[in-house]
């Protein structure tokens, strides 16, 4: 897979966070500890690569929760493959990352 070479450490971290269910920008920032200036461009990039999709939360839901509606990000199938591959490739990075998230490496589907 050629595209894996495009994924930087922070992109992998963001993708990983999304796969773990951290679904909106600031949540991902908290999960990864990365600043907004890193997380957002990474999200745009992952979206461009088709690794994540995004959708707006329904207005009613947001209104009920008394907060602005959110844009949620979701990992795609291709994203999951890429993530698994990336975690394989960056084994050194993978371990602390996996540990930190309490995750076992996903199998490629």
């Amino acid at each position, binding site marked *: 897979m050629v595209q894996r070479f495009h994924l930087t450490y922070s992109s992998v971290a963001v993708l990983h966070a999304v796969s773990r269910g951290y679904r*909106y*920008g*600031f949540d991902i*920032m908290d999960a990864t500890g990365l*600043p*907004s*200036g*890193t*997380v*957002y*461009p990474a999200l*745009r*990039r992952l979206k461009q690569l088709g690794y994540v999709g995004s959708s*707006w939360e329904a207005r009613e839901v947001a209104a009920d929760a*008394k*907060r*602005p*509606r*959110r*844009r949620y990000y979701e990992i795609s199938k291709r994203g999951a493959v890429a993530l698994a591959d990336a975690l394989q490739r960056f084994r050194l990075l993978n371990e602390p990352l996996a540990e930190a998230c309490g995750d076992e490496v996903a199998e490629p589907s």
Partner: protein
Amino acid sequence: MSRAAISGTVTHLALQLSFAVVRVLSLFVPRLERADWVEEWHGELRSRYAPADASDPLAATNVPPPRFGRPFQPLRDAGGALPDALWHAREDWRFEMLSHDVRFAIRTLLARPAFTMTVVVTLALGIGANTVIYSAVDAVVLNPFDFEDPDSVIGVGTIYPKLNRDLGFFERLSAPEFGDIIENVSAFEQVAAFDLGNRQITGGDAPQNLFAGFWWHDVMPVLGFEPVLGRGFSSEDITNREPVALISHRVWQARFAGDASVIGSTIRIDDAPFTLIGVFPPAALVYGTDLWMPMSADPATMPRNRRQYNIIARLADGASLDQANAQLEALARRTQQEYGAEFEEYEDWRLVARTWTDVNVQTLKPAAVILLAAVGFVLLLVCTNVASLLLARSAGRQREIALRAALGAGRLRIIRQLLTESALLAALGGLVGVILAYFGLQALTLNIPSNLIPTSANLEINARVLGYTALISGIAGIVFGLAPAMQTSRLELQRALNLESGQSTGSRRRRRLHGAFVAVEVALALTLLVGAGLLINSFVRLHRVQPGVDTDNVLTMRLTLPWNKYSDEAIAAFFDDLTERVATIPGVTAAAAGTQYPPIVFSRLQFVPEGAEIVEEGSLPVGYLTLADEGYFDTLGIPVVRGRRFTRQDRLDGPLVTVINQTLANTYFPGVDPLGKRIKIGAPEDENPSVEIVGIVADTKNRGLGSDPQPEFFVSLRQANGVNNQIYLIVRTAVPAISIVEDVRAQVAAIDADQPVYGIRTLDQAFADQVAPQRFALLMLSAFAAMALALAAVGIYGVVSYAVSDRTREIGVRIALGAGRREVIGMMVRQALIPVAIGLVVGLGLSIGLGVAMAGFLFEANGADPLTLSLVMVVLGGVAFLASYVPAKRASAVDPVEALRVE
């Protein structure tokens, strides 16, 4: 307020600010995604830092307390929107998009070749002129020396308040003073003193006079050079004054045909054998000396006041010029304490270090600044003209732009497209400008006064010059492109799309911008014209000055008689013989000899007037001393006012006499008859005989046309006993002076075949050379002013033409309603002249500022000369009137029927 409350307020403000930041940044985000993008960022920021409507009591309980110490966190988080926005914008800035813009711009420009050519040529003239002037300034003022680390090469000069001598660096220090500097100034890593003179290379084809430097300490390490060939001076060469010599690269090429085998051979200098040990590189020319020989003196035995040395030094690693100056200042004070009683001139004297570049070009800096500013004004005018053209053209592109906007192009995007076009125009203008500059530089090299340029300076287009050109081209592109682009991109979409082709919106705003351009052009042109006018005025005055000598048909040339062949009375005898022989040449009416002549009298000496009080409190009597023979005054046409001139009877064995000029008489013998009084030549402590004043001659402009006559006294060459061996032959002719040069050479050769003559020029030339810098500045500034006048005229013409075509319908209606054609012309001209008038007023202010800045350059001319100002305003006003009248006349030719049918 509690700390938490304060922190909360700050966070609230920071949040509001961060919303604004996101909004501004959203401009980078493509329009289609912008709303979503803003909502996402605002939403995230709001839910983090103001999670709920504070008015809702239920939600308020959920507000987490603001984290202390981080009230600006919202701003930091919002800062992340910048890379995010740029990530979105990068689509727009991809290379393909840029290249698309460029290709589109090329097509647009090619579609209007006449317009493009006009703009490129105009720009090229402006940029080319700037490139030429900058390369001259770079070569002459900014980087005249190619030394290793040129800022570390230092000259040392002196100020003697007691002798009325301002800061000078030329032949200002004596051997003991040099010795003191070597010992006391640790900021200098290397110091060399040198003396200058003329020497003859004899043997070979023809005797040749070379300007020579005599070095006390090797100068190569000071300059940071190695000899091109051979070696430099060793310390033994210096201390033993070995008969060894280095020659310049150019003499090696010209006289020795670049033959490497001459190193080690013997050459004859002033008829004595010297071993040629090396060739120094072209960049090492110091004051244009071509021949270097070692020299040294014993500081302990040399008199402190025989000041004939120049000093050049290299700063030690890590030492600064300030440190050097501090050490020199301390040294000067110690010297004053120690020797002040013996040498009065040490009172408050100062030793001053400057970079060698400053030493040599300091006086040219103001001229360089004025020329750069003037040529910069020309470029500004060019930019204004081009902006005006672009603006006029943009009217025809209104629909194109509107269509692009309708299809989703943002304003930034459109401005970028338009700026790409102007950048392309600027680049083309810069390119053609450099080519023009190449030829301009050739022309400049022929016209720039050679005595202005250090001999090592190279007038060329180098990397620095190209960098400067690129810079000004880029700035020009923005300057002339931005205003039209802003104006063009600001449009009311609906109206623009509804327009018929050929019509435009925003006429009024565009007209106002056009008016502003005209005002700027007029102001700039006025300023340049006034600058040129002031210089012309000053130059004319300078030319009206009576030089005090008769400059027509006088030929001068210099001879340096070698000491080892001619000494004592033999020097006067040689010139006796020579002047007699030269007088027999047909066409020669008089011949004389003297050590210097106006306008450049340079040898300055202290003297002591006897029997007269010293009038100038606090300063010692100083005058210029000229050695002259009995024909000197008549040949130059200097009248004797009282007493007598020298005669052949004023011999060494007779009573010693002097002739003084009027200024010396008035200054040092006020109210006394100086005839019969005596003066002692030299400082009071010197043991010189005194001489009797036997004559008073009229003043000459002995220090140049622009200066007042200075005190000067003359001593007979016969009584000088050969103290000076560098003497001018001065010949007055009834035929063109330059035509007898070969006859004179023949007479010199008849006496001594090995004796070269040099420095051949007419007295007219000498006076012309002396005002060459002024003439050069005048020439350049006049050229710029002429360019400015032409540009302003073209600019006004263009704007009025455009206004006429833009308002054809309106004019047609007016005529149809009964307006006379003359009224129509009058209206157009009147409207055109309003910005001209504004420009004249603004320009007047600028001109007065310029006049003040130029005051130092002007000879007896006031910086705010009313005659110059009013003359220039009349000229410019007249040109502006013509430039608007001619196209306005076309308005009167509008056929109302045709004009109304346009729609």
